[in-house]
């Protein structure tokens, strides 16, 4: 690993000043669980490293019904996994975290670090997109809120200016009769999924017609992929096995999954079908309960 200059700011303002000063030459490190690996491989060699892990002000979780869930960017995966609030109101997040890598990684790695890394095989992003989450980004010049679905731009590339920091993840309180689920194809527990699907379904109270469906696929494209055509096959209907099957077929076609050393395009496409169907079925069951 190459030498770098190191700062350990204690406040958000301090970090933002540093980012503003060094811009492209600097890189934030939080948990470093993804970053240190590529730094050791020589693929990343920033001149200035801004270590924000010590900014305790960004390690928090709050929830109220009106504002929904607010997660500070430096909240660890493990905190999210174990949080009683999350397990009660946003169960899918806890389930997703339980399957993310291993305990050691989750103990130190942060949700913010994971999202900013922008791995298309990552699990949090698709789930947060399905939950219609928003991100609060901040720089010295101000704040902006963007939809989670707009954040990823390409493989390992996110909509974050060199002088910006991710501050908070905002997840709205789900409407009544909303269910969410996340499933991924793992060879080994904790693997990045060969494919993954995060689904959120909202039903109209009374007639059970699907009011909203959000289906997001991981590791089938360069970014987490929202398959809107597939969603349209569910919205406005009373969902049954037939509509689930149809939606998964459309999702697979929409995804046009590529091949890599872990799976051929053909197999991956088929697995998109399977996991969209499975995650949708679970989301539907949960939505029915209310």
């Amino acid at each position, binding site marked *: 690993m190459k030498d770098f200059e190191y700062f350990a700011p204690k406040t958000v303002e301090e970090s933002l000043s540093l980012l503003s000063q060094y811009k492209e030459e600097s890189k934030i*490190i939080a948990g470093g669980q993804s970053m240190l690996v590529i730094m050791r491989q020589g693929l990343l060699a920033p001149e200035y490293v801004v270590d924000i892990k010590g900014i305790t002000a960004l390690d928090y979780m709050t929830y109220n019904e009106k504002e929904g869930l607010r997660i500070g960017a430096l909240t660890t995966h493990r905190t999210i996994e174990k949080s009683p609030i999350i397990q009660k109101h946003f169960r899918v997040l806890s389930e997703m975290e339980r399957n993310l890598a291993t305990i*050691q990684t989750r103990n130190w790695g942060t949700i913010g670090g994971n999202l900013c890394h922008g791995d298309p095989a990552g699990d949090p992003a698709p789930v947060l997109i399905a939950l219609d989450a928003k991100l609060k980004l901040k720089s010295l010049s101000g704040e902006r809120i963007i939809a989670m679905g707009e954040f990823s731009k390409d493989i390992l590339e996110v909509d974050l200016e060199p002088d910006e920091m991710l501050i908070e993840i905002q997840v709205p309180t789900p409407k009544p009769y909303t269910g969410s689920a996340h499933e991924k194809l793992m060879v080994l527990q904790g693997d990045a999924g060969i494919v993954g699907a995060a689904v959120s379904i909202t039903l109209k109270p009374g007639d059970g017609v699907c009011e909203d469906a959000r289906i997001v696929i991981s590791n089938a494209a360069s970014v987490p992929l929202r398959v809107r055509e597939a969603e349209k096959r569910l919205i406005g209907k009373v969902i049954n096995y037939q509509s689930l099957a149809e939606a998964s077929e459309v999702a697979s076609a929409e995804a046009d999954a590529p091949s890599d050393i872990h799976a051929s395009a053909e197999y991956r496409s088929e697995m998109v079908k399977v996991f969209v169907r499975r995650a949708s079925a679970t989301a539907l069951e949960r939505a029915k309960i209310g």
Partner: protein
Amino acid sequence: MKGEPKELRFTVNGKLYELKVRPKALLNDVLRKDLKLTGTKRGCLESTCGVCTVILDGKAVRSCSILALQANSHEVTTIEGLAQGDKLHPIQEAFINHGAIECGFCVPGRVMVAKALLDENPNPTREEIKLAMQGVLCADSGYVKFIEAIEIAAEKMRGGE
């Protein structure tokens, strides 16, 4: 200045250390080279094998994936900090008595993961133990005796005999 050593002040196994380290130094390097605590092993250096695991503020973490400076003001426990003189920790005893140890290379990291688990959750299910063990690779044992030994240690720590 690039690479200029910075102050690191942290507790390891109950002892306070103050030293200067280069920013790029990993916690694993500092423990093994500077503090001579070679019980924590160096394995893949890529966050996959887990033999470098230590406990930081009560949580099991990979020391190869943490900059040493990130441990500033924190408390680290390594394998050397477990036994109290001649008195071994119940997990260590169980590993010995249950025949769970082979080449031993993954043992320090594994013991630390097990300790963090049992400190947080004194009555884990077998599945929870397996999930915890997922982060430390072993090439020889098949994991069965490790899992059983942790169950034995957990029972002992809960007051059973």
